[in-house]
């Protein structure tokens, strides 16, 4: 029952949604409107409970056990509570917006901009033309890096057009092959979920 009921639900709903796609009857459309527009969206609101639980549990555990850097977990929890209360009490007012624009957005943008430095360091240390394939990769990368910036057209007038050709044909050929493979894989996985062969979403235990 603990595993069979969810598997049965996934099976029934999976096939219902597949068949619904091919049935143009108004009743089918009505079912789609109610189930998708309303019910599933309402259910998905509750999924956030999992993320809150993980967040609070992880940091409170760290504080309780005084693990290394536990003081930072206090910062995380206090800032979460402050932001949530500021937003709800002020109804997304001034403090809430300023915290997003001048704290959250700059922090996230800066975190990811660190990658530029690490890419440069990695390119210097690890990017080696050890064999034919690696050399081909290097040459393609160099041509694209030069051709996609303004300086490329100073080196050779035709470079931007050549880069465009590489992207539209050889690159696209490989990307298309990968994409078709991914599409087939997604369909296989979806079928496995509906048929109950893939059960990892049920978690462990009985």
């Amino acid at each position, binding site marked *: 029952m603990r595993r069979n009921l969810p598997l049965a639900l996934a099976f029934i709903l999976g096939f219902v949604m597949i068949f619904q796609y091919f049935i143009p009857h108004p009743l089918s459309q009505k079912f789609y409107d109610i189930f998708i527009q309303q019910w599933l969206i309402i259910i998905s609101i509750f999924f956030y409970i999992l993320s809150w639980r993980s967040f609070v549990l992880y940091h409170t555990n760290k504080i309780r056990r005084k693990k290394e850097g536990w003081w930072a977990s206090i910062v995380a929890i206090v800032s979460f509570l402050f932001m949530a209360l500021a937003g709800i009490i002020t109804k997304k007012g001034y403090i809430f917006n300023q915290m997003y624009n001048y704290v959250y957005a700059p922090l996230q943008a800066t975190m990811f901009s660190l990658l530029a430095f690490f890419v440069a360091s990695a390119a210097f240390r690890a990017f080696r033309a050890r064999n034919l394939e690696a050399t081909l990769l290097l040459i393609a990368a160099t041509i694209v890096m030069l051709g996609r910036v303004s300086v490329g057209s100073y080196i050779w007038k035709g470079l931007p057009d050549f880069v465009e050709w590489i992207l539209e044909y050889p690159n696209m050929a490989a990307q298309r092959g990968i994409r078709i493979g991914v599409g087939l894989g997604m369909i296989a996985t*979806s079928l496995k979920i509906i048929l109950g062969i893939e059960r990892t979403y049920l978690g462990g235990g009985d």
Partner: protein
Amino acid sequence: MNISTDIWVWIAALLTLFIYSFLYKDNPFYKFAEHLFIGIGVGYTTVLLWFNSVIPKLWNPLVHGTSPMRFFLIIPILIGALMFSIFSKKNNWLIRIPIAIYIGAGSGLAIPLDFEGLIFEQVKGTILTKSMFNSFIVGFSSIVLFIGVIATLVYFYFSKEHKGFVGKTARVGIFYIMIAFGASFGYTVMARVSLLIGRMQFLLHNWLGIIK
């Protein structure tokens, strides 16, 4: 130089520098900024969920709505509320029900749409047609494309050993894949550098006022 007098710009600039201090070495300023970011992110999502989902989709229809059909919304609310069972050691298996409904329905929705969007359209785009050969360059390029798609698919077909004709075709596929990965790497470098340029523009323009 026209340094900003806005306290919020200064806060953003200092937090930016705290993160960049990690490039020298890990330190408490970086840790502080990192955890501040995590906490505020979760808080932000919570607020949006409250005002843009819970209130208009749950509270308003049930409390302020007039249609008798609105009470059917209790069904998805009860199903969603099963997520709270994760807090109970005895009944936490109930959380599987809303997850199974969501994933089952999502998988069923995805199958016909993936077929159309990811497979049929892509195969259609690869097929050689007469009109492609009206121009030499387009015709030649279309053949390059056709060979590349077939070769790449053969490379990823592992049910047969890559020997003989299959092996040679797979090798051609590897060359196409390497060109694609090289192009992706070039673009990835471009993307990462763009992020850095964006932050530098903020520091130099918005904070210090050095550039226009």
